[in-house]
């Protein structure tokens, strides 16, 4: 068995010593392949990567010395080198003996530079594999020859296919432990072929190998002379990369940044997602639809006549068209689609599950919009690929759901373009990346429902009433005094001749929202509807007052986002829980304490106080009358500045 410490020696390419310039010239024209390795710790995956790094001379003597010491101390290979230790990264993980995140490793051969994404095979880490696979051209799926196709093999294959990886390599590892038996290998390949076709994988390449001994990893193996195909490395060196495929599609480039160093230059910077572009070609700005021609192309090395997929360039246009970050420049005759609703496959990546109906930031290409996700149509069991019903998506769930954006975005189905079809969802409160999504198709509705163009504008509505619309959003615990103060404010506004309307629990919960319960999802939908109604009323020029507990920051922020800047006025009625409970006007706290009301804010459900409300009312220090006076002054006072 090779792998013993004494066998290791650094063997540089002879050409380096003989003719360094020739060596460098040869290496300058290398292509690059990114691949992901999938398998569990038990499959010997880290050992295989360590072997690739070692055999391709990506390991230096000092790293080798550290490796020897580590192998002796915590290794699992007795007196032999434990290649797995080269790959397992963080100190905490080393003690556990597993990798728990995506690690990127680099090595190169004469033909190629390789970037390996290494992700663990453990069930709870679907997230990591999808992350690592999202940038990969190929996937190496490891199988332990002794065990054959396992549930996790199916899972890895499904995920690789889901993310759109076109080159699947089945690495049948540990052949040394099954006596290098051709029959074992053939059976595994037959089993896998049967399964692969059921999930849509048409092609794969199977290689029998041993990461531990190095057989068929970088070179042929005497022990398996029955295998005549390429070694793993030779196969990876020969795989076609996706550049050429992308280049043959119609031109698309998301505008990343507008470059305006002076008044004479206005360039649109971005990385070309697909196709090629040449000076003088007609392009369309999407979504506006304006057509113009390419005036100049600035590549990394200066002015060019043409540029192709994958390159980062700066384009100038012949006409002064409106174009900014988030727009897409596309082939004039073949532009991408525009829609605000689609069906997408979503991989949930956060501990906090999806809140259907809640607003998230959706980032796709260089576009960022506010979006909500509907309850999933179904969740996929990654082990059986069966469809299950589920009300939401939890960590590592994969589901299909409808996504609604607050404005139309430019996109393509993910199968056609990862750049314009893949998106992330960002939690608006924590800013964490909570999900990855892949657009399947737009919803038909999106193409047919157009905003009605209205002649009497919201400005005209407001001007007729001689006021600026506002939404005065009162939030606070049950019994804090929201309704009392909101009522006083409306009376005062009415007396001043202002046009207003108060939305509160009674006129909403008993009518518009009577179908909603008090679960978290019900509460989110309740506030969403109230927000939409408030917005319509503000469009009509009214001053809208709302008095709801509205316990979640995310929903209040969502309503704020529906309105023009400055029109949403968050008013925090700040009454401590014990005081509100002592008042207990409606006797609700007593019932909640007795367990008769589930999900009661402050008792069994959280209240997220506003960070920076426009107005805060401390009800222990200010009477309702004084608070109402101050709120009216704030609203009217701000107007006088505007007018």
């Amino acid at each position: 068995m090779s792998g013993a410490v004494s066998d290791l020696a650094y063997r540089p390419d002879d050409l380096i010593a003989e003719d360094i310039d020739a060596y460098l010239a040869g290496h300058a024209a290398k292509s690059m392949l990114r691949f992901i390795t999938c398998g569990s710790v038990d499959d010997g995956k880290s050992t295989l990567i360590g072997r690739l790094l070692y055999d391709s001379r990506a390991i230096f003597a000092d790293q080798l010395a550290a490796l020897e010491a580590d192998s002796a101390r915590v290794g699992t290979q007795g007196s032999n080198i434990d290649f797995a230790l080269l790959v397992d990264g963080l100190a905490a993980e080393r003690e556990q003996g597993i990798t728990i995140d995506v690690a990127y490793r680099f090595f190169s051969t004469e033909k190629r530079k390789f970037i390996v994404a290494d992700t663990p095979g453990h069930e709870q880490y679907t997230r990591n594999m999808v992350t690592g696979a999202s940038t990969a051209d190929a996937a190496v799926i490891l199988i332990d020859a002794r065990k054959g196709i396992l549930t996790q093999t199916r899972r890895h294959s499904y995920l690789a296919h889901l993310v759109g990886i076109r080159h699947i390599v089945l690495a049948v590892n540990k052949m040394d432990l099954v006596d290098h038996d051709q029959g074992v290998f053939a059976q595994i390949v037959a089993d896998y072929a049967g399964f692969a076709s059921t999930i849509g994988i048409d092609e794969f390449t199977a290689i029998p190998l041993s990461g531990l001994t190095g057989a068929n990893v970088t070179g042929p193996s005497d022990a398996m002379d029955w295998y005549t195909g390429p070694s793993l490395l030779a196969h990876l060196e020969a795989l076609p990369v996706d550049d050429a495929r992308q280049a043959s599609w119609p031109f698309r480039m998301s505008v990343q940044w507008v470059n305006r160093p002076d008044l004479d230059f206005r360039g649109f910077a971005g990385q070309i997602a697909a196709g090629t572009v040449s000076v003088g070609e007609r392009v369309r700005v999407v979504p506006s639809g304006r057509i113009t021609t390419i005036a100049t192309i600035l590549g990394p090395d200066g002015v060019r006549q043409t540029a192709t997929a994958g390159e980062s360039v700066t384009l100038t246009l012949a006409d002064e068209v409106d174009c900014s970050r988030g727009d897409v420049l596309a082939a004039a005759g073949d532009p991408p689609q525009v829609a605000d609703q689609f069906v997408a496959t979503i991989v949930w990546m956060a501990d906090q599950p999806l809140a259907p109906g809640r607003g998230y930031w959706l980032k796709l290409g260089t576009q960022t919009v506010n979006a909500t996700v509907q309850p999933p149509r179904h969740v996929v069991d990654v082990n059986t690929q069966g469809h299950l019903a589920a009300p939401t998506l939890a960590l590592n769930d994969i589901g299909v759901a409808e996504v609604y954006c607050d404005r139309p975005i430019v996109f393509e189905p993910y199968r056609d373009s990862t750049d314009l079809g893949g998106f992330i969802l960002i939690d608006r409160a924590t800013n964490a990346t909570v999900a990855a999504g892949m657009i399947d198709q737009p919803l038909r509705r999106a193409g047919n429902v157009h905003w009605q163009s209205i002649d009497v504008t919201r400005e005209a509505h407001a001007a007729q009433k001689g006021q600026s619309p506002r939404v005065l959003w009162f939030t606070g615990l049950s019994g804090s005094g929201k309704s009392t103060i909101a009522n006083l404010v409306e009376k005062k506004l009415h007396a001043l001749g202002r046009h207003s309307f108060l939305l509160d629990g009674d006129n909403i919960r008993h009518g518009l929202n009577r179908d909603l319960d008090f679960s978290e999802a019900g509460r989110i939908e309740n506030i969403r509807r109230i927000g939409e109604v408030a917005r319509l009323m503000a469009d009509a020029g009214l001053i809208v007052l709302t008095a709801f507990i509205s316990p979640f920051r995310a929903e209040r922020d969502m309503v704020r986002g529906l309105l023009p800047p400055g029109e949403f006025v968050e008013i925090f009625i700040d009454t401590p829980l014990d005081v509100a409970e002592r008042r207990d006007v409606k006797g609700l706290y007593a019932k909640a304490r007795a367990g008769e009301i589930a999900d009661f804010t402050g008792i069994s459900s959280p209240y997220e106080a506003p960070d920076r409300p426009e107005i805060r009312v401390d009800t222990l220090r200010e009477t309702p009358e004084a608070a109402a006076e101050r709120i009216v002054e704030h609203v009217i006072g701000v107007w006088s500045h505007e007018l």
Partner: protein
Amino acid sequence: MSGLTHLQRLEAESIHILREVVAEAANPVMLYSIGKDSVVMLHLAKKAFAPGRPPFPLLHVDTTWKFRAMYALRDRAAENAGMRLIVHRNPEAEALGINPFDHGGRHTDMWKTEGLKQALSLHGFDAAFGGARRDEEKSRAKERIFSFRSASHGWDPKAQRPELWHLYNARLHKGESLRVFPLSNWTELDIWQYIVAEGIEIVPLYFAAPRPTVERDGMLLMVDDERFRLRPGEVPVERSIRFRTLGCYPLTGAVESEADTLSAVIQEMLLTTTSERQGRAIDHDQAASMEKKKREGYF
């Protein structure tokens, strides 16, 4: 049509990253350490924003103990790029006279780790470009390209955001910041190949030349100025040396070499049997030392 070469792909990716930060961050800055990686990073920034200048300043967190040749290139490179150069020296370290001879690990902690945090907070930078590469060290292999730091500049490996496709999440709350590494996917050889291909100027210390040296604790140190404290019996000896990595001169080990051209340097790099970080004294402190330093806020 033939595809892009690996260097073209890396270049395009780095430019994309640089522009994404400028589009999304409020107040970005580029850390400039004058080493070969930051020289390449600056070169890429010039390309990304041409024909304009990169719309952010350069920041050098100085320890006062860098090689003289580094200071010379620093000032010239910033001027050539037409960028503002901010030099920050930790006033506390300056007052205490912290130096590599008397203070060991505290020298790096106070000048670099603390100095960096001070400078970022002082100027309110919300995104800082750094030249780190994933191939440098094991704990860097799983570092994100956009690395999220808490308001106290801490790095929590569990709180890092998943990075999918080429979509980077640059959203921050007040006080939080990002470290962004446009060279994440470059290897040492890529850097050298790019320097050759683009004709980028690097500090002459990377090339072999006769220089005054002493041998100490298994390292070959260069006597760069009169502040170098010779131990009893030590006499500077002229040797032909070069550096594979540059930092504070009393902490940076040289290698004996005759390689005085780029190809010769790359040839030696490829034939040598030690990795580049070995020349840095700070990494030998303890196992997993880099990860510990990152948690504390070291770049």
